[in-house]
């Protein structure tokens, strides 16, 4: 094994949404991989339309398919994009086993990437949006208690003080785990709130579903890696599954990904790490593609502790609500937010890339073992 070339790895990782897109397109072109650009009709940045790029590598008849998705949470996509570009640039295509294809969805939520937000252009947390609208929506009563104090638009010292006191009181009364679960779980009640799952399917959701139906329909065995950041120790890559029993592939996921796999719904002690999340992309895919055997993980790369990051995240959201986007304070928050979800350190990016390539390898090996 040769010494990892840190600078070369650093080049996979983009500095902005537009840079990510150019890097992705260039990597595809160099590797002779065709891609489609799907335009988001609602928004643009620096005079350019926003797109989700889709590349399919390998035979359209392949029975085994690995899907790599970046940017479900907008700005978390810089990390995922770097991993996708790295996989292409390092010759991933040439090492594909027989009867196996790879589908890359680059920046599923381009708005969030372009505007350094976790949400979509609809203000929705896309990973809470994959929900069945035909049945009653999950309730988050604790969030309802907190909303007015988390997301107020009034700017006064008095309001701030009242809100902080109310939040502290909640924390004292219900405990920190309940607090974090309330704020990050998912809520479908407050459009202007945090971690809002939406009232209908977003453009990004419909787009992902269309892509999967078009491109994954032939496959019998599908592995999905949905890249995220912000949970876990700095630089550590942790696969997360929502599977909870043998029926939905929990044992298979452990066989593929080993002891580092976090089974949120099967291991009670892990609940406070990731929270009780409804409406996630990976959990919804089995219903979308009922004929395939799906092994889906979110791959979470750690950055900074959530309790330190959350105030920045919340203040950024609040400034968005009051329409303050261009002030120096708002810009500074965006810079902090970017670091929180995408550390600038090349060492972080190096270890992320190495781990990502390892997990991609585990997924491909897992697909080969599928009968």
């Amino acid at each position: 094994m040769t010494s990892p070339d840190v600078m070369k790895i650093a080049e996979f990782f983009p500095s902005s949404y537009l840079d990510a897109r150019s890097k992705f397109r260039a990597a595809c072109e160099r590797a002779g991989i065709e891609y489609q650009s799907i335009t988001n009709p609602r928004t643009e940045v620096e005079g350019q339309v926003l797109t989700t790029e889709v590349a399919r590598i390998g035979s359209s008849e392949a029975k085994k398919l690995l899907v790599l998705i970046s940017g479900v949470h907008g700005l978390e996509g810089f990390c995922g994009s770097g991993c996708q570009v790295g996989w292409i640039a390092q010759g991933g295509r040439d090492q594909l086993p027989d009867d196996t294809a790879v589908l890359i969805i680059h920046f599923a939520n381009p708005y969030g990437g372009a505007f350094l937000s976790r949400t979509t252009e609809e203000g929705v947390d896309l990973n809470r949006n994959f929900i069945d609208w035909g049945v009653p929506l999950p309730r988050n009563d604790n969030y309802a208690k907190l909303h007015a104090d988390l997301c107020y638009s009034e700017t006064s010292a008095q309001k701030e003080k009242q809100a902080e006191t109310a939040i502290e009181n909640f924390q004292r009364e219900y405990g920190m785990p309940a607090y974090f679960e309330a704020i990050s779980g998912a809520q479908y009640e407050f459009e202007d709130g945090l971690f809002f799952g939406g009232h209908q399917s977003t453009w990004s959701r419909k787009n992902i579903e269309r892509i999967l139906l078009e491109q994954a329909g032939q496959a019998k065995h599908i592995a999905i890696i949905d890249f995220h950041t912000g949970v876990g120790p700095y630089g550590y890559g942790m696969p997360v599954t929502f599977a909870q029993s043998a029926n939905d592939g929990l044992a298979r996921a452990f066989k593929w990904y080993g002891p580092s796999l976090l089974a949120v719904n099967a291991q009670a002690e892990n609940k406070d790490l990731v929270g009780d999340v409804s409406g996630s992309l990976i959990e919804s895919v089995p219903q979308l593609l009922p004929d395939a055997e799906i092994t889906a993980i979110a791959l979470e790369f750690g950055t900074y502790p959530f309790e330190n990051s959350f105030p920045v995240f919340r203040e950024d959201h609040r400034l968005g609500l009051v329409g303050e986007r261009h002030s120096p304070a708002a810009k500074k928050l965006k810079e902090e937010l970017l670091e929180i979800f995408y550390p600038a350190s090349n060492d972080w990016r190096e270890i992320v890339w190495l781990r990502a390539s390892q997990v991609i390898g585990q997924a491909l090996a897992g697909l080969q073992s599928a009968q």
Partner: protein
Amino acid sequence: MSLLNYYSVNYLDCRRKFLAATKAAGFSVDSFVNPLMGAKGEELATDVVLIGSISASKLLVIISGTHGVETFAGAAYQTGWISEERWQQLPEDTAVLLIHCINPYGASWRRRYNEDNVDLNRNFVVHPTGHIENNLYAQIHPFIVPPALEGEEREVCENALRELRHDFGETKFMQAILGQYSHPTGYGFGGWEPVWSNQTLAYIIDKYCSACSRLAVLDIHTGLGPYGYGLVGVAHAPESEAAVRARQWFGVPMATFAEVAGEYDFPDYEKYVDGLLLTAFIKNLPKTEVTAAGIEFGTFPYDDVLACERDELWLYNHPNADARTAEQVRRKALRGYYPQQRDWQEMVWWRCDQVVRQALSGLQMTEINL
């Protein structure tokens, strides 16, 4: 060669690979032979290799096996570091010292402690004035060291331990087991005098580290934290100049031991810092700029690792156990500290390589840019 080949599952192979790599690269080995014999009747030794000049002003020391059974991660990196010719890229006036298996007895017998049942990472205090009084330990001792491996006696012990842990609460429970200087056959015993590994290290430091003016030390451990994650922890006080320097070298994922204590809920952990092996470099080289860090690689959940350790401690106290039982216990102990799986081994290698690179570039920085 696949980096997985640098990993071994027993001390004999581990030493053989290291010596072969060293010989192939043309470096000479300074072996410090331990008077006892290994589990397979083999010679036990700490092998030291210096790459670069003994008078280099900048020196990086990489240590494996402070906790015997944890040896195999760090030792694999040391062997690979030589075979992959990382030494070709050494900066000017910079040397590397590899200290391979500083606790060879523990490595060979697959135990955390040494031949005297001493936790080497509690042994570097001043004896006897530095012995920390841990009154809670006496209460937990009869249960943390199990009287039997299985059966009714063991069940009674487990129930009692569970009850005691519940009564104590987690904080007090951790206080009880973090270290002690009162029970030589017990858990976390720090020893009553400098043990062989301690004396050997003092000699090595004197012989190889006296000339440099800037020294970095990396002591590689396993068994704490998320599977495959490598946390850098420094043996310096949180606000000290050395900690600031280390932060600059290692970046965000560096913690002082006080912070590690907070992260893993180890109360009083900073009290035990003075017993750490890393502190020998700081104490013995008062005129040298020392940046001393451990890398801790996670394996399995804390209680699983603890269970392996406790069984091993039973074995230590029952040397007449039949060979098959002994092998089962040791195999389990090894596995707890050393997942023999490709993903873990790769993660360990990559992270070691990164931290070593950070330390080597850190040594080249002339001033701290705050």
